[in-house]
Structures are given as structure tokens and as C-alpha cells.
């Protein structure tokens, strides 16, 4: 609903901090885009099945074999903070 689009609330759902200037700018731009998207309501799709993707492939299996994977040091190499071979994160529980 473009009229009551709450950009601050949705940005928080998406875990993005916005500046007040961004809130104002994105709010207006996204209302405009949502207004345009409303045109899909012109179509009757009640009898139409949705398409999630265009290739009719189902259940692609491979053999369940043990293979080499990314070594721990490599996996941690791009981390912003590590300790004892683990990712360091802020405290979650007191």
C-alpha cells in the first residue's frame, strides 16, 4: 500500500540502518515504485499457477560422498574478527 509505506519499519526488518535523509528519500522513491507495481492488479491471475523459476528440474541428486571442503583457516581468512579458530561475534546472551 503506497500510501502508508513505513520505510523505517521495513528497513529495520531488513536490518539496514538509514539516516533521516535516506528515510525521506527512499520513502518517496519506494512509494513511487510501489504505485507503478500496482498495475499488476489489472490482471486476473486467479486461475494461474505461479512460476518460481523457469527450468523444470526436480530432485537433482549427487552421490553422497565425502569430499574436501574449505579448510578452517581459509574459511576464517576474510572474517572481521576471529578467536581460537572461530568467528568472534558480539555477546548474544547475558
Amino acid at each position, binding site marked *: 500500500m503506497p500510501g502508508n*509505506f513505513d*520505510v523505517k519499519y*521495513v*528497513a*529495520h*526488518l*531488513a*536490518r*539496514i*540502518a*538509514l*539516516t533521516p535523509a*535516506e528515510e525521506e*528519500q*527512499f520513502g518517496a*522513491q*519506494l512509494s*513511487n*515504485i*510501489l504505485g*507503478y*507495481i500496482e*498495475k*499488476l*492488479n*489489472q*490482471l486476473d*491471475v486467479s486461475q*494461474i*499457477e*505461479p*512460476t*518460481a*523459476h*523457469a*527450468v523444470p*528440474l526436480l530432485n*537433482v541428486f*549427487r552421490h553422497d560422498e565425502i569430499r574436501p571442503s*574449505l579448510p578452517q583457516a*581459509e*574459511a576464517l*581468512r*576474510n*572474517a*572481521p*574478527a576471529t578467536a581460537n579458530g572461530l*568467528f568472534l*561475534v*558480539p*555477546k*548474544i546472551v547475558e
Partner: protein
Amino acid sequence: MTVTAMLNQLTTWELAAKLGRREVSARQVMQACLDRIERVEGQVHAFISYDAADALEQADAADRELAGGTTGKPLLGIPIGIKDVLAVRGQPLNCGSKILGQFISPYSATVIDKLRQAGAIVFGRLNMDEFAMGSSTENSAFGVTHNPWDTGRIPGGSSGGSAAAVAADECIAALGSDTGGSIRQPAALCGCVGLKPTYGRVSRYGLVAFASSLDQIGPLAKDVRDAALVLGAISGPDPRDSTCVPSPVPDYAAALDGRIKGLKLGLAKEYMIGGLDPAVGAAVQSAVRQYEKLGAEIVEISLPHTDFAVAAYYIIATAEASANLARFDGIRYGLRVEGGDPIDLYCKTRGAGFGAEVKRRIILGAYVLSSGYYDAYYLRAQKVRTLIRRDFLDAFGKVDAIITPTSPTAAFKVGEKAGDPLQMYLSDIFTISCNLAGICGLSLPCGFTASPKLPIGLQLLGKPFGEETLLKLAHAYEQSTPWHKAKPPLAE
């Protein structure tokens, strides 16, 4: 400068012949590209970075193989530029964004492994709109890429660096990715050939995901034969991408036999839109007449849901993006901005790391998936997608390919559309349906605007896994016209 010194201007197939006969070395070819970059990159800015020493080492390795005689490797010693969205082990990967920080890829994309198996020199990090979101390459955290035909204009996007580098002869061919036109539109605006393969033709393992049901990797090249050669090298099934279809890869270059007599080309009446630049319309009309002269039959077709494609696309693509880009949270890699608790850390990191267009699209995607709106937006868009796909499958019952402009206008000026995202989205009108329908599409040069002289792109849309027919049609037109031989007027 002698003709033999301008090796960087040649195509992959011309260079492969010269390299095979040992007339030139891979080092000379690579050096010619590096020299060209030295002279024009200040005006173009196609690359975020490149490692000249590594590229020359790869060239020397190719020369050692060439010294041993026939290798059967179709791209041996050919420098191919890589869009900054594809992982190359040991090289930086930024997706045109600040949020990846100093990220170095711990593994290579399957297409990179395949290029190496074909002998290519894997070269450089080509600029792009951040996370492939954009149509101008203005949304890069690493600066704007400029169109080699007029450096006051954008190169298109999101694979703008790939298109500009190929058009400016800074590399011989390049890889890009296409979610709604991101290979074909910059190819059109820079005057090169760009191919979006059918969904499932090329493995996406090692491609940073934008919209997983739409993304494909494909070539940007100086001519159709090069596009065919690179496509052949990167296609085929991959156990690491379950959406990649296990069907054999044809010899695409073998399809370029000029035999298009009797092939049927569809002209969609819905594509004659109001916003079409008259110069673009005239160039496409004259391409249609050229196809008739070459023996193809032109058939009027209808794609009745065309007008709904952009709206459906910006729901589906943003919804998928909001999920895919959730991984950039400041925990395991890239930028981290500390916060009082994990949620504060996520919000601050993503607020600081993402650019405006990426934020807009993630927020839009989160909204259309949110409780109460899912059915109204996301599910409805998926149903409209069914109608769009059906339009194409119906049309392909009557024709072998569909002919359209690639973009409604030639390259626009830097900054011209930057303040109005909806106007930018609407410029994708001709390319977006192809991704929604999962078919293949190709853009090739079909003329120029008068003043300033800017390239115009012709788009051919083909059946699922119909790349051979598409390339055959494109090649026949290209070989009967002069457009692909024109070079941009860059001062050295």
C-alpha cells in the same frame, strides 16, 4: 603504430589462429592489452583492479603450452576480463560494493575453472553496479565507468565495466552476469556483442547471487563468433549448481554457417513503445529489412503481457535479493561496524556498507515478502511470470527467434537518470522478460545515432536452449553489415 602491434584489437578467433601459428606470443597479446589500459583507462575506468604481473605469468604459461604444439584449447593465451561478481581464487571480490571490504576469494567460480581449462588468461576485476543492481554502472562504490564512444555518457549496466573494456580493446572478451539485461544492455550501449544464455545453461557456482531464479553468466565479445567460443567454453552441467541443466554443449561456432533462409523472426507489436528513440526504431527497422534480404521470414507476433514485465520483475528480483543479500551481516566476512548487540551490528554494518540502490531494493524486497503483502505482491508477480513465460512459448511455436531493440535509447549522460530509479527501471523494458521467461537473448550492434555517434543494439530472443539458432541468426546479420568493425574514438 603497425597493424601487428594492435593485437588488443583482434578477436579471440583471430588471435587463436595467430597464436597457433606462433606468429605472436600470448605475452605480446597480454602486453598489448596492458599497454592499451595504460593509455585509455584514465578516461574509461572499466577496471576496479587488475594484477598485471599475474596476467603476464599466465601468458608465459600459455606460451610454454603453445611451444609444445597443438593443444585443442580454444582460448589458449587469450585475455578475458572478469566482472567483479565472479569469484577467482586469490583475487579480490567486491561486487562493486564497500560491504565486502578487503575480501579475497577462497575459491574460483566454475566458469573461471572452465575458462582456465580452455586456456584463457583470467584477467582483472571489471566494474559494475553494486551487486549488479543498476543499468548504468553509476551505482559502483569504485567510481563510474565511462562509455568509450562518449566518455560523458554511461556504458550501461550492470556489466558496464565488461562492455566498456571490450569496446575499448582493453581485453579481448569478458564475462558478465545478466539478471534483467545486465549483459545485453551494456553490450548494446558500448557497441559489442552480449549473450545471456538460457537459465540453466551455465553454472552459477561462484557467482555472487542477486536474484537466483533470474541470474545467468554470459560473454561480452567483439563479434558473434567470439561470443559463441566463450559460451562453449563456460557452458555445461556442474555438480555444484543443481539448476544447471545436464544437457550436452553443442559446438556453437559450427552453427555459424550463414544459413538463415526460411528461418522465422517474430516482431512483437507490444515492443513498438512510445519511449523508443526514433534513431533506435529506424536502426531496428533497417535490421529487419536486412534479415528479409538474407532470406529470413518476418512474422508479426504478440507478447500480450509485455507491459507487466517490469513490475513483475522488480517484485521477484528484489524479493530474491533481500534474501540473498542477508548474508552480508558483518559476521563472517567483509565490513563490520560494531554495535551494542548483534542486531545493532547488522543494521549499522549494512547501513554503512550498502549503497543507495542496494538499500532501496533490499527494503522493497523485504516489503513484498512481508506478512500480509506476500500474496498481493510476490505470489501475484510469480503468477504474472507464468503469463509472460507462456507468451514467449506461444510465440516460439510460430517463430525461431524474436527481434527487438535491446534498449529504448542509446547511452544516456552520466547523472541523467541517477535521481529517478523508476525511470532507470523502465529502460530495461526490452531485456527483462527474457530473464523472467528463462529463455536466451543476445544483443549485437545494428547502427549508430547520428550526433553524437553512439552504438545502437539489436536484440534477438531465442527458445530455451536455442543458443545455436540465435548465434546463427546474429552471425548472418553481422557478417552482412559493417557495425561490429567500428571502433570508438578514444584518444590515446
